[in-house]
């Protein structure tokens, strides 16, 4: 069981992911944009952040950069999600661990999570 932080401005996405990952036995916390996510990270240390790229207030790139610079969360696994092409996220690409192109299916998501979390 891992602690997973879902950050996405689309409520339908956070609700669906939250349901599936909880069913898988993970502890799930949700935020709807990068700024809210950062304030939650002050009191919570996830194993993995599953973040959307395009969000209001603070996008996934800004969140990733800030997280990587923090002492507390620098080594957290980060999965970037977006409907946009990964090529358009080149500036932040070295900072995340995996990319999921939306819409993705549940098997693809779980495969990536298991890989990054070292689960069988």
């Amino acid at each position, binding site marked *: 069981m891992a602690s997973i932080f879902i950050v996405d*401005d*689309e*409520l*339908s*996405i956070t609700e669906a992911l939250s349901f599936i990952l909880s069913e898988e036995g993970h502890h799930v916390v949700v935020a*709807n*944009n990068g700024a809210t996510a950062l304030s939650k990270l002050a009191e919570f240390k996830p194993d993995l952040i599953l973040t959307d*790229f*395009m*969000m*209001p*207030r603070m*996008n996934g790139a800004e969140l990733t950069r800030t997280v990587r610079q923090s002492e507390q969360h620098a080594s957290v696994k980060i999965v970037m999600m*977006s*409907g*946009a*092409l990964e*090529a*358009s996220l080149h500036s932040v690409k070295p900072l995340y661990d995996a990319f999921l192109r*939306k*819409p993705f299916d549940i098997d693809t998501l779980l495969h990536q999570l298991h890989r990054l979390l070292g689960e069988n």
Partner: protein
Amino acid sequence: MTSSNKTPSLKRIPTGVPGLDEITTGGLLSSGVYIFQGTPGAGKTILANQICFHHVRQGGHAVYLTLLSESHARLFQHLQGMAFFDLGLIPSSITFISGFEALQSGGLAGVTALLRGEMRARKAELVVLDGLVMGSLNAKSAEDLKLFISELQAFSALVGCTMLLLASDHPDSPVTAEQTMVDGIFKLRERAYGPMRERNLEVMKFRGSATLRGNHAFDISDDGITVYPRLEAALRHSPGPSGNRSVGTGVEGLDDMMGGEGYALGTVTGIIGYAGAGRTVLALHFVAQATPEEPALYFGFCESPDFLVQIGESFGLPLKQLVNSGSLSFVWQQFGENMLDQLAYRLLKAVQDTGAKRVVIDGIGGFVATAAYAERGSSFFASLTNELRRLGAATLFLMEEDDPSTPSPPLTTADLSALSESVLNLWVQTGVKTRRFLSIGKIRNRVYDQRRGKLVLSNHGLRVMLADQATTDSQNEVSKD
């Protein structure tokens, strides 16, 4: 020092949607707030995205904010097949974000705050708010929604951002109070005509500029949305004086019957006749006279271009050669399920593109069969024929009639008068032998032979013989059409 009292014209944001900027006489006004309203599936989201992508292709930035709609990834999949959509422009030029959480946690004030922040952060000159109905449902009162739109309007003006609010509605719902505060309202609707349906757009309100009033048809294809400004509203140019010069009919004897000249350039001639009376053959003889200097266009709904060439060749008309040399063009479309204005613009564009001076429209039934024809008939044809005259072509309009034995135009006298300067009637007498006849119904401003002529079809082509010639030449006649 001089000063001008004239207010500088407002800056425009072209939409890039074919036909739409013509309706608003140049595009949306910069910093304006516009409502695009329509039933679900009316095309609002496609239209707004098409405008966004056009805007960012010109170097601008746009924010697309959804309140409650399909997920953005799903939206991209649906738009992927449209020519205007370019995933590579997301998110560098267009950012898609959801405002639903802001609405839930902060109400309309939360959405306003979010939009203000995003407009500035993204340096967006264009913002779309998709799902105004959600804002409306979350408004505590009508005043609350008014305040929301008023605040958006004030901020848009301040930062120079144009805003599109997409709202679903019921087709019969009246314009509501909050809409009257915006700079413009566009209604998208689908109209039913029996089993046929047609998409329509109407500009209900547009501050600061004239618009083309009334309904305008549009369609959605892989190219996105194309609006066809209603011909009567869009084309109001004077046709100018009609032709001083004529082009030959290509039919032996007919030029003489028409007063020694053929069809005048810049005029329209109605060719009326029952099926088999010889309309098509008469028209093929006309286009067979095409030259590189005076090319011809055959705009048809019935026989395929290949078949028409074959018919022409059987009368010794070198149509294939003319097509190959570029002097003759065929534009064919399926009969039925067409949009009236779309057909008209396709025809006019073909005339302009080919520079045709000899134009055949085969036939009027292709226009009559469209959904919108019944309510526009004569006014539509008046605009279309005026434009054809203005383009300087001699146009033949082939018209089908129901009765084989008597000339009976399928249009009212008013329609026919609006449509054509000249009318040729063709009819058939059946008996032991089928005989075809032609008479001239009218030629404006010309003295012509009012006797009826016999149409003779032979391997050498078509000829018209007046009564005194007909007897001696009848042995050469063959049955062909």
